[in-house]
């Protein structure tokens, strides 16, 4: 399955018309220890780029934007259960934020692939 990335350091993995979304390993490292996260409720809909979730480290609070438009069909129960450590431990795996039923696959296709994102991060 292809993973794509945004300039704001969200990642998206597409399985059929359901996209799993989280923050990149780079973003998790930049944030440091996560001490709070807020996920949207199942059923909420977001346009691409809209504020969707919040993740806070000891250092700072960051908005997480919807990388593509869609409706929330699942939110990570580990994070809802306040196991925020999972975001630091496995940001691009078990530490996913939400699953979105996507509206427009073209939005996904237009995002950076892994190699492009790696280049982008190198330039930061």
């Amino acid at each position, binding site marked *: 399955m292809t993973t794509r990335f945004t300039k704001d350091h969200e990642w998206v993995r597409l399985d059929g018309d359901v996209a799993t979304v989280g923050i990149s390993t780079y973003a998790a490292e930049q944030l*440091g*220890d996560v*001490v*709070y996260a807020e996920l949207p409720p199942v059923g909420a809909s977001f346009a691409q780029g809209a504020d969707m979730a*919040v993740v*806070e480290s*000891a*250092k700072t609070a960051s908005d997480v934007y919807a990388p593509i438009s869609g409706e929330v069909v699942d939110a990570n129960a580990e994070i809802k259960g306040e196991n925020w450590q999972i975001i630091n431990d496995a940001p691009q795996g078990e530490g996913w934020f939400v699953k979105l039923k996507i509206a427009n696959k073209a939005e996904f296709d237009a995002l950076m692939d892994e190699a492009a994102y790696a280049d982008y991060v190198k330039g930061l």
Partner: protein
Amino acid sequence: MAEAGTPKKLPLDALWRARTSKFGDFAGYDMPLQFEGLIAEHNWTRSHAGLFDVSHMGPSFFALPKGHGLEGEAAHKKVASLIERLVPADIQGLKPGQVRYTMITNAEGGVLDDLMIARPAEPGAAGDLYIVVNAGCKHQDWALIEDATKGEANLVRADDRCLLALQGPSAHVVAAAVIDPALAEMSFMSVKRYDAFGRLTVTRSGYTGEDGYEILVRAEHAAELANALLAHPEVKPIGLGARDSLRLEAGLCLYGHDLDATTSPIEADLAWTIQKRRREAKDFPGAARIVAELAHGPKRKRVGIRPNDRAPAREGVEIQAGGKRVGIVTSGGFSPVLNAPISIGYVDAEFAELGAGLDLIIRGQARPATIVPLPFVPHRYYRPQKA
């Protein structure tokens, strides 16, 4: 006020860069923000000893001109009376080797900076004061001091040296082993010079709530001292990130956030920094407002706030009671020791009761919180029992 242009490098820049790449501009200096991780560094400082480079701050010596002809107590009283034109603390009353925390106040009773003023212990230094001001205010402060005392005393900047803070329960063991056994016996808020690593000016003080020292060392000896301290197994380098979470847990004010030119020392719950002689003399800038607030209470008060849930309330969060705005958060974040969010804020006096419930407006949502005593985590300063 940060200096414009490229941030300045610390004298120990290379030493820190060998240990971290996480730097950031703070008050015009390129400062190490984080080493191992903010929470790990925070907890290490609370359980062992952390070494902080705070050379961006403004250490200085303020002294009567050469040939002033005064001795001992008379020389101290003279130099202290000059600096008392700017601050409300009793500086004349400092004993040799004593340090006081105070503020530069403006005519309206607001705080222009908070600072430390020390009277050297050494008889040969009578007529000198050692003054440490905040990084972001140092140019303003030094200009104010020079303007207020022109021709009567000289201010010598010492910010070309390094200021290192060693903080934590093991700090005294490390300082005794690396610098001089006598450091272990200094009491909190005292100052002493040591002939080691060139010549050091050491205060037993800090900004973490822990026991510890702030050590002024000449730049040419700074690496030698820092390496000797870091070689001790109890010591790790700590960045500015953990410095902020440590001072927040200790309930200490950060200038520009918890204190500013509109905030009075009384609103800030710093009445203890204004000693009796000055309250009675009312002879400092802003005395009218400050003395009135001492008598009748301030309109708003600085308080500790614990959110009842897990969401941190950071600077700028509005505080409400019954749907009405009653205050604002001035510092907030996460307490590693309490494993919970904590905030400092100002609340209208009638709502500033310990234990009172308030609402914090975080991302448009009201979240319940409780006013709690400061500090959030008890201070552990060293004050030897008097014989």
